[in-house]
């Protein structure tokens, strides 16, 4: 992330630029909710107190560590499996044609609808949750990887043929980097999916985790704590997407820079969704 390299003053400015709206909304919420007597919409000050006590004397820290571990491992697993399978399917046209109806089907199924079933089938414990997250996250990565591989320009394929590039080298140095912009776009989608699945999987059957925290708070009508947990999930999602941007910049430096250059390395037929 370039902001990390900026001098402190400009860094501060950037941060303010990003956070002012959040601050305004939070302040608005704080004052509007100050006199709230509603059980379900407690005052923000009460939520804040619940958050602080959750962190200092409660389980939030353990919960966050647990949840974070799950989602990171789940995402990494999904990315590896999705990319590997995606390259295989994208490269083997026959295989793709055979699988096409199935892939089209998967494309339109909402992944989170499967959570209760899969949790039921896999049972409680940490590993099933990680698999669940990976299972939900693998599809966007897989589908994007297939698209990315198939979008490789015929000129590039001709080049590999004419110069007799061996398979392994071709996959590693040509196909994978060519599909990388699409793969990263897939991971970005998976990230959002993963956060939802992470929380929901902990609501269904868990003894720890931020989803569990929210669920327990809700079941004992500590609505302020439930809200606090929800805010933590939001913050977690935000931090994860920041981390994602750092990873993406590192993996795709050439892509962002060449898109800025006039001749922009058009090795694939442009990526569907450009992320910043």
């Amino acid at each position, binding site marked *: 992330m370039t902001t990390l390299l900026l001098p402190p003053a400009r860094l501060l400015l950037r941060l303010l630029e990003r956070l002012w709206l959040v601050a305004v909304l939070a302040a608005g919420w704080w004052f509007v909710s100050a006199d709230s007597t509603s059980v379900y919409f407690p005052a923000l000050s009460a939520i804040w107190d619940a958050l602080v006590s959750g962190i200092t004397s409660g389980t939030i820290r353990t919960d966050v560590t647990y949840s974070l571990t799950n989602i990171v491992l789940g995402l990494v697993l999904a990315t590896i499996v999705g990319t590997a399978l995606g390259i295989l399917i994208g490269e083997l046209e026959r295989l793709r044609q055979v699988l096409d109806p199935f892939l089209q089907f998967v494309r339109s199924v909402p992944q989170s609808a499967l959570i209760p079933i899969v949790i039921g089938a896999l049972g409680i414990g940490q590993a099933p949750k990680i698999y669940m997250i990976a299972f939900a996250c693998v599809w966007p990565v897989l589908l994007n990887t297939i698209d990315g591989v198939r979008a490789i*320009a015929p000129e590039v394929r001709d*080049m590999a043929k*004419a110069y007799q590039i061996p398979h392994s080298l*071709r996959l590693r140095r040509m196909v994978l980097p060519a599909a990388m912009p699409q793969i990263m776009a897939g991971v970005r989608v998976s990230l959002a999916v993963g956060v939802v699945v992470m929380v929901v999987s902990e609501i269904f059957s868990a003894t720890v985790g931020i989803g569990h925290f929210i669920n327990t708070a809700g079941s004992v009508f500590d609505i302020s704590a439930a809200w606090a947990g929800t805010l933590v999930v939001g913050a977690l999602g935000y931090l994860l997407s920041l981390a994602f941007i750092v990873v993406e910049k590192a993996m795709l430096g050439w892509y962002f820079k060449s898109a800025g250059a006039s001749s*922009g390395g058009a090795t694939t037929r442009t990526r569907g969704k450009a992320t910043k």
Partner: protein
Amino acid sequence: MTTAEHLDLLDERRARHPLAVKGLSKSYGEGSTAVRVLEDLDVRVEPNEIVCIVGPSGVGKTTLLRCLAGLLAPTTGAVMFGPTTMTGPILEVGVVFQDYSRSLLPWMRTRENVSFPLQGKGMRKAARRALADQCLNAVGLPDAGRKYPWQLSGGMQQRAAIARALAYQSEVLLMDEPFASVDAQTRFDLEDLVLHLRKRLGISVVVVTHDIDEAVYLADRVVVLSGHPAHVVDVVEVPFGQDRDQIQTKAEPAFTEARARILGRIRR
């Protein structure tokens, strides 16, 4: 192999074998929907010769070049390199694609792009690097190795693509409309580069082009394709030898004559 051997390699690369198509026909599609594009072609590229292929758009020039490269299998007939029948791409034949901005990989520096095919051949890193630098030098890009392709101009990218073909030990360079998308001055420079490389390295070159002036300026022989399916309607010998000059050569009566003859053939 050592680095020193590779230094010699570039200078001592002489085309030793002719590249030829014999009775080549090519159809796209199968059965009743098959379309014959090339019909019974005989084209022969002698060692150290430059042959240009011209013809109207869509006649089948690219198809012929892809057959010569071993990228397309002929429907009938054969592609021969020396005494052997080609069944796929071979080391001795390098291809420079028309769309250089796509054929150079944007995630590799120019030097890596040039040496990428060498990596496939299992050459060691130091040797690859030395040969790549030497080829970049030979095409007039001594400082581009560390840059990415998208940091280079169109003409420079095309030079890099030529360097890649040279590095690959090719004795024969196949070029499909190589200079179609660069400005006039760059185009002249690149044409002279091709003439220079032919003379210095002793390689053979096949250039597909739309531009008849370019064909006559570069070629020892111009092969004119026409018709559906395409066949060779004329082969024009160009008598200018290995040293040519953009202004003088193009002012010679023989130049105008060859040009008019080819134009007449294509128009008809």
